[in-house]
């Protein structure tokens, strides 16, 4: 486990107390008028009648609500692009592409998101490794919470490719990784440059030789690979099969869900299901699998019956809730899908905010505490970072959000966001937001 190094910037506000207000620790009863003591970026104590040492800087949260920082469980933003064009790149890591200066992270802080799992996009068969990072910091190494948080696998076949071909390629990769895992002692058991078997002499039957198959997944084309390269390339998959990290498996349609479960069972790895909105049809299967679930940003949509033309409203969180699936949410990944996406377009409110997703679930029947858990403690557990984040408990990182009112309400704003005990966002100082609200006022006149 990678333990974060406390950055020098935190020193100035090493000791903090948040006083007054309502503390919603998640998993425990809320405390009205409580106090949170923060020291060295960690939560030191939480309670009602705590003495605040004199050298602690005090943030007055009277009349406000304090929550653990929200956690985005699956995001492909913060990088230059989500997907590698090459289809099979298990050796890539998002850490190499994260740009802390991107507006995305600023938006995260503005909306109370303090940790986020950056995961490669949905379009690459084996997309590379995910990482959990904090949303505040100047350099990615300071932000990292967990470097190898999982590997991304997508069951969505590329353009003009069939699912049969896609799964055949995936199985081939898994077999190779399994062989590498099984034969890790001694010689590399992975395919080498030597021809494995005699090939038929008939010139026309090129395809009978597997090494000569035109393989769309071979990254460097037909170049012969050295055993070392292969070992490096497959290392991440081997780690997956060892159980060192989970796989985020993207299922585009309901039909991919049984395939994902079959793969996970056949190759015995830990899986997290990333479900496209049409996967709701497989909700029963998902529930029976007991696997953790990340839902597509589209939570409510209309579907029309191809035969009768009848329109039906599909409420995804309701379906999974009724099936007994604990869910987590994803937000829309469109570039600039934030309040300030373009100067001439009006600000939008919707699935581009994590809290909005939780609020949508509440609208369709999820109780508020459960919805709050789905954006805090549940993603922390899913990502294996619940020892550090996800709830307000002594010993955890002081990632906190101070809201102006009750959570998941439309007129509630994020007042202050803290990451590792450091104030990283204050509404009063948010010039962009002020500018926007100013514009709104002018616009309404």
């Amino acid at each position, binding site marked *: 486990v990678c333990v974060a190094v406390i950055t020098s910037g935190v020193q100035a506000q090493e000791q903090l107390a948040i006083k007054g207000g309502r503390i919603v620790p998640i998993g425990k009863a809320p405390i009205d008028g409580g106090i949170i003591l923060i020291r060295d970026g960690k939560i030191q104590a939480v309670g009602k009648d705590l003495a605040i040492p004199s050298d602690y800087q005090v943030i007055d949260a009277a009349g406000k609500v304090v929550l653990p920082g929200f956690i985005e469980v699956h995001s492909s933003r913060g990088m230059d692009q989500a997907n590698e064009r090459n289809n099979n790149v298990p050796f890539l890591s998002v850490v190499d592409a994260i740009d802390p200066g991107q507006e995305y992270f600023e938006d995260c802080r503005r909306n109370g998101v303090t940790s986020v799992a950056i995961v490669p996009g949905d379009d690459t068969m084996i997309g590379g490794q995910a990482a959990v990072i904090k949303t505040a910091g100047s350099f990615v190494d300071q932000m990292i919470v967990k470097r190898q948080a999982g590997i991304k696998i997508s069951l969505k*076949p590329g353009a*003009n*490719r*069939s*699912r*049969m*071909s*896609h*799964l*055949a390629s995936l*199985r*081939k990769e898994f*077999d190779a990784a399994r*062989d590498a895992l099984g034969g890790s002692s001694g010689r590399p*058991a992975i*395919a080498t440059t030597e021809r*494995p*078997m*005699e*090939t*038929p002499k*008939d010139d*026309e*039957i*090129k*395809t*009978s*030789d*597997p090494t*000569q*198959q*035109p*393989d*769309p997944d*071979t990254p*460097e*084309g*037909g*170049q012969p690979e050295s055993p070392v390269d292969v070992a490096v390339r497959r290392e991440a998959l081997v780690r997956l099969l060892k159980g060192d990290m989970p796989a985020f498996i993207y299922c585009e*349609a*309901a*039909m991919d869900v*049984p*395939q994902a479960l079959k793969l996970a069972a056949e190759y015995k790895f830990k899986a997290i299901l990333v479900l496209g909105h*049409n996967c709701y*049809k*497989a909700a*029963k*299967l998902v529930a029976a699998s007991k696997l953790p679930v990340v839902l597509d940003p589209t939570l409510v949509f209309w579907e029309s019956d*191809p*035969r009768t033309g009848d329109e039906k409203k599909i409420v995804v969180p309701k379906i999974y809730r009724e099936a007994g699936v604990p869910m987590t949410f994803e937000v829309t990944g469109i570039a600039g899908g934030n309040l300030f996406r373009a100067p001439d377009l009006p600000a939008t409110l919707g699935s581009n905010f994590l809290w909005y997703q939780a609020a949508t679930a509440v609208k369709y029947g999820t109780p508020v505490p459960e919805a709050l858990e789905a954006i805090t403690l549940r993603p922390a557990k899913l990502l294996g970072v619940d020892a550090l984040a996800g709830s307000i408990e002594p010993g955890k990182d002081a990632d906190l959000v101070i809201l102006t009112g009750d959570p998941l309400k439309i007129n509630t704003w994020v007042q202050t966001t803290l990451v590792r005990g450091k104030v990283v966002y204050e509404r009063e100082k948010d010039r962009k937001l002020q500018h926007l609200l100013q514009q709104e006022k002018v616009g309404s006149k």
Partner: protein
Amino acid sequence: MIGDTQMKNEECKMKNEKRTARLLLGNLHFSFFTFHFSLCFSVVLALGATPALAGDPQAYKAARIWTGDGPPIANGVLVVRDGKIIAVGSQKSVTVPEDAEVHDLGSATLIPGLVIAETTLGERGKDDERALTPEFRAIDGFDFYGDYRSALSGGVTTVQIAPGSRRLMPGQGAVVKLAGDDPHARTLRERESLRILLGDLFKSPPRIYEPPVGAVSVDKPLEPTRQQLAASLASAVAGLRATMRAATENGTSTSASRKDKNGPVAALAECLHNGGRVRITAPGAADIRAALSLAREFNFRLILVDPSALGPFKEQLPTWKETVSGVILSAEVRPGAVSDVPVPDKDDPKRRLPWENARDLLAAGLKVAIRPAADNDLDDTLFLAGLFTSGGLSSQQVLQMLTLHPAELLGVADRVGSLTAGKEADFVVLDGEPVGTHTRVQAVYVNGQQAYTAKFAARSTVIQAGRIFTGTGEVVARGSVLVEGSTIRGLGRDVSIPADAVIRRYDRAVIVPGLMDLSTGLGLGGALNTPVALSTNLGERLVSGDPAVAVARQGGVTTVLLASTAPAASPVVAFKLGDKPRVVRDPVAIRFAVTGNLTQQATTLRGTLQAARAYAEGWARYEAALAEYEQKKKEFDAAKSKTAPPASKPADSTKPEEKKADAPKKEEPKAPEAPRKPTVTEAMEPYRALFAGKIPALVDARRADAIKLAVQIFRDEFKLRTVLLGADDAFRLAELLADKQVSVAVGPEVVRTVEREPVNLAQILANRGVPFGFQSKATTGVKTLPYAVQYAVRRGLGADDALAGLTASPAKFLSIDNKVGSLAVGKDADLVVLSGSPFELSTRVLAVMIDGEWVYESEE
């Protein structure tokens, strides 16, 4: 797991009963029992959510049951438990378990769910670029959550799915069921057979780079694409042979297969190992020969698909059994379509029909499966298979080729393919013999669960409500209205209800007739304020899908009038606000206006009406004369036929008395003269109905002097039925109107303030006995007319009078009361369901029906 819970549940139930009994007997341990009782209760509740899985057996009785492997059973019963068949046989021989739920299907016929040995219901149109991909599995491309209702509606429950259809060796097929929740249980065989295609389809694989494109430099230029494999049958077979040889040789060496378990060679080796199945599509005679020789050489079980050119092999067929598992044939025609027959094969000049092939193959003891030529025809499988009876095959044989044979051929006969105890309960309910022209699939069950049921549109609706206001003053408490088609067929406390009727209950609600608005701008998608010639049939101009109409009817108005608001005489049409406007009567009236300069108006109107009267009277005279003429003509003809000497008269001497009687009437009657027909003037035609009193004149007159003038001209001088539109000042002249029998359309301002006093015209007219209706002159605002009337009720108008004013009363003075305006048997089914008494403040419109169709339903 489910079974477990059920057992526990049943045990629990039994224990419960015992315990409850003991409890009643005054047994001890009260708290102990209640604890268990509550526990069991919760289990029962949980299971209640999925009633279909309950463990009780289900028994289906039917007139005939075709098991698929023998002759039909008359008066049979099929017993199913937990998705499996536990017994099948005649009702006499099979004991139905006591706890079974019995479904009597009457005269229906049961057959096994159909099994189709080859479809492309998997992934379509995405063939790989490579020609040989034996490692591909069709199951990977099958969507378990897809929509297979079309195939199910044809009785198809199990299908083989092909991996691809445009490459030489596209992969391995699978066998799946088309319905069910659990993908695992639905997969009957994950890897069924390896597919090879001969014939023409495989011959154009894309050219590919080989080796794949790498770094390009001067030393290492980009190579051109190369042809993969063969474009001819000979090289394809040679290629297949070489590949198979490589696979079988390597298949024995474990190291090779372990290294590349899911690679192409290993996959092929696995397919061929231990006499695996390979299906080869081999249309021509040469293709069939090649397939047979490959099968013999590599010792696999062959499934031949679509071998059309079987002629030359007729003698050898009995020897095929050693190699050939079965043959899949298609009917080669598409239902209801004309298809070109292929040009004869040079090896088999005498083209044979599929049923002839089927007959020969069956005679040789081979298994034959029938499939439709295209997936889109799966819903017509029974029809297409029925064509095989024309080749002399029996219904039983045809059914076998759709059920047991394909199941055996696919290796799934242990689970499906016949109605046999122990197999899965996949069956189809038919309304007749399996091979019958008019037989329809009524329902399809997969694993005992209903997967499809034919929906025949219900022909009648019964609406039950707390009270029904018929519109004629009568109120039926706790009544029902039976609607068949667009007509009311029953109304009262206890109406007869057809078996298939849809029943809608509105316990506390009130039903009133559809309301009427006497002047609107609806129906044309915009206002009509330009003059319209009287000869115009406005009804033909009405447009469908006017969005304003959809809003207008939400208030309960179902029939409206439309006319031009221009001052000149204009036709008026009455129509219904259904999705498609339906004309009630066209024209239903003629609209005039007495506005502006009354002196000038009076002259114009008199002139118009005089000309009209002259025209109408001319026609009336003609009609009277014509009627008289026809009467006389009839008499004359009768007389003439009597007087005219019959041809047999000279011979007829037996009736002298008759002759005597005729004799005095000897004088010849003069033939009547037909009256001269007046010329038809289209623009004047509507006046004939007006002057005949069939339709009224709607006269827009608001001020007192205008009203007086209108009454004078229309009532006194021309004796026309008159309805005043607007008639704002009619409250001053109510007696006059009553005296002259003039009706009024009140509105759009229903209650006006005149000299600081509110004037409730409708109430005044009601008290004087002047019939009245209401008009809105609005478009979407028609919706609010009932609210305007509600205010009149608040201001003193009786609710019954108000309702009559919106329904029966205008229907009567417009002479359309034979169809609309009240609720009675035989009238149009136009009605409004209200949440409470009409015109109460809290009352809301719950639903509106026009011509038997629900056009609006509130979201409550």
